[in-house]
């Protein structure tokens, strides 16, 4: 938890990783991709404050002790949600698997939620694996990379029949939250991996599931906003938005926040540090201190209240994952500011 100016914040880091990306885990013949991937991630860290940068060696292979210190001891986080990323075509043991995450989580009861993943192109075997993971790790969420390579295929859409079959099965198994990676760093070829329209279809057809669009659709924030404003079960995952912009480009961070608050609203925005890309400490402290600047060209954006910050930093994700939050951290039901653009008619009627 984090306390500032007499206010207490319950922190859920809803998007973080425990990866293994050193040369010992690179697939023979795919070394350039494994190396390129982790170097690309490392460059993202360069967008945070200089004193939080790590050497590439640590970045490839940070330890359990590093994670526990950075996220919990120093990082104010109460509950962290692992989002796995497999990339087994490049990393022998996987980049960041459900098993690896869960093994760490089991050593620290109550600290972690282990999400799992699926890939509709894995057929029946994948469904079986999903069932095993849900049973074994109690996963309530999945992280999906629609642009991941798989056996010659360069990606899929959430609206594909194969994906619907998996979504149905996931729902049946008790999965509630679908985190979809719609953001930078996984390459699309002609398949436009940044396109968020597949989430739109799936969100409409699976109203019981929540769809958290990670990285808010960058570089398609506008498409994401138009879609999210019409779908009550679509959320904005702020990973990369805070880490990549708040320090490096505060002016543009303010604009992105202004747009998200307007179209999506503070009740449907969730904080995620994207650790180990960025440590949560500076992001949380900076976000609590952050306010929409008084600049003229930002004057039509709303301010963010303390209640709004509490929701974004933890309470919204706690609701999605049924995390019990002590009363001292809660905000009154009506506190804060709803999205200015709650009226879907404004968009659909255009």
């Amino acid at each position, binding site marked *: 938890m984090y306390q500032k100016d007499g206010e207490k914040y319950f922190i859920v880091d809803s998007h973080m990783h425990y990866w293994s990306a050193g040369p010992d885990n690179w697939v023979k013949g795919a070394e350039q991709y494994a190396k*390129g991937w982790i170097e690309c991630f490392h460059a993202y860290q*360069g967008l945070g404050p200089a004193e939080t940068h790590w050497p590439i060696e640590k970045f490839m292979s940070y330890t359990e002790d590093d994670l526990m210190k950075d996220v919990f001891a120093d990082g104010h986080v109460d509950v962290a949600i692992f989002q796995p990323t497999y990339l087994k075509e490049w990393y022998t043991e996987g980049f960041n698997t459900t098993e690896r995450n869960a093994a760490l989580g089991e050593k620290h009861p109550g600290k972690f939620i282990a999400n799992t993943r699926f890939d509709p192109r894995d057929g029946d075997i994948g469904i079986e694996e999903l069932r095993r993971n849900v049973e074994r790790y109690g996963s309530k969420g999945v992280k999906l990379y629609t642009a991941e390579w798989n056996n010659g295929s360069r990606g899929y859409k959430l609206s594909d029949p194969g994906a619907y079959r998996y979504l149905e099965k996931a729902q049946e198994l008790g999965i509630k939250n679908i985190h979809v990676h719609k953001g930078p760093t*996984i390459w699309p070829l002609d398949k436009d991996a940044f396109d968020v329209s597949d989430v739109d279809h799936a969100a409409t057809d699976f109203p019981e599931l929540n769809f958290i669009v990670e990285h808010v659709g960058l570089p398609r924030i506008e498409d994401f906003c138009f879609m999210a404003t019409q779908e009550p079960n679509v959320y904005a995952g702020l990973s*990369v938005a805070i880490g990549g912009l708040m320090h490096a480009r505060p002016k543009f961070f303010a604009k992105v926040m202004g*747009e998200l608050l307007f179209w999506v609203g503070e009740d449907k925005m969730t904080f995620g540090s994207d650790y180990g890309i960025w440590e949560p400490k500076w992001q949380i402290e900076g976000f609590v201190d952050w306010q929409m600047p008084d600049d003229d060209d930002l004057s039509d954006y709303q301010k963010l209240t303390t209640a709004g910050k509490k929701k974004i930093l933890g309470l919204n994700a706690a609701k999605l994952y049924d995390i019990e939050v002590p009363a001292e951290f809660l905000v009154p039901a009506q506190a804060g500011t709803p999205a200015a653009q709650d009226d879907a008619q404004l968009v659909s009627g*255009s």
Partner: protein
Amino acid sequence: MTSTSTDSRLSGGRAPVPPEGGAGASLAGTALAALATVRDPELDEPITTLGFVASCVVSCDGRAVVRLRLPTYFCAPNFAFLMVADAYDAVTAVPGVQAAEIILEDHFASDAINAGVAAQAGFVASFDGEAVAELGDLRAQFLRKAVMAGTDQVCRPLVAAGVTPAELLVLTLGAVPASPQLLRLRQRRAELGLPAGDDAPLLIDPQTGERIAEASVPLHLRKARVTRAGLDANTSICSGMFRVRYPDGWTA
């Protein structure tokens, strides 16, 4: 890191042309000017101001070699392909250039893109079995975003000066005070084949070219604003990544 020699690297606002006398140097300057017409389709900025041109050399017999570099190893190959192909077209169109080689460096798909552009093979053929459509639609889609972002750039000062939505609705391009932003907006609209003349309405649907309905003006402006915010945020991230990767290379 890039393999270009230090004297041809970008430094501050200096042009990436090596100090070399004679016809080659003058041609290189012309080639560089031609490269300034090539834009990153996603960021809507010239590749020269983005720092993406690492070097541009033209030999005395008119053989041009251009080296390009991008913010990350994994920048989207479709956009990368468009930039390399556009650079090839721009440089080969320069009078006096007999042949051009465009080399995208430090990218996971460098080989496929460089070879594909050199062979004038198109995107699908360059990524055999991995791509099914050429990139015209993608380019048009991002041009429409540029039109929306440009609409915000032009309309914001007007709104701030007290122009009402009803007044904006009837405003024509010719009636808007001249500005670099207006010029840019007209150019983008013209590229898409949308009305761009003096009589054309300022507010149009970038898909159809139709005038915006009065009731939709506030929403249209909101959409323009968020599109520009997204473009700016994207450019911020890309420029930040580029600077981390090539600390001396960012000039915009």
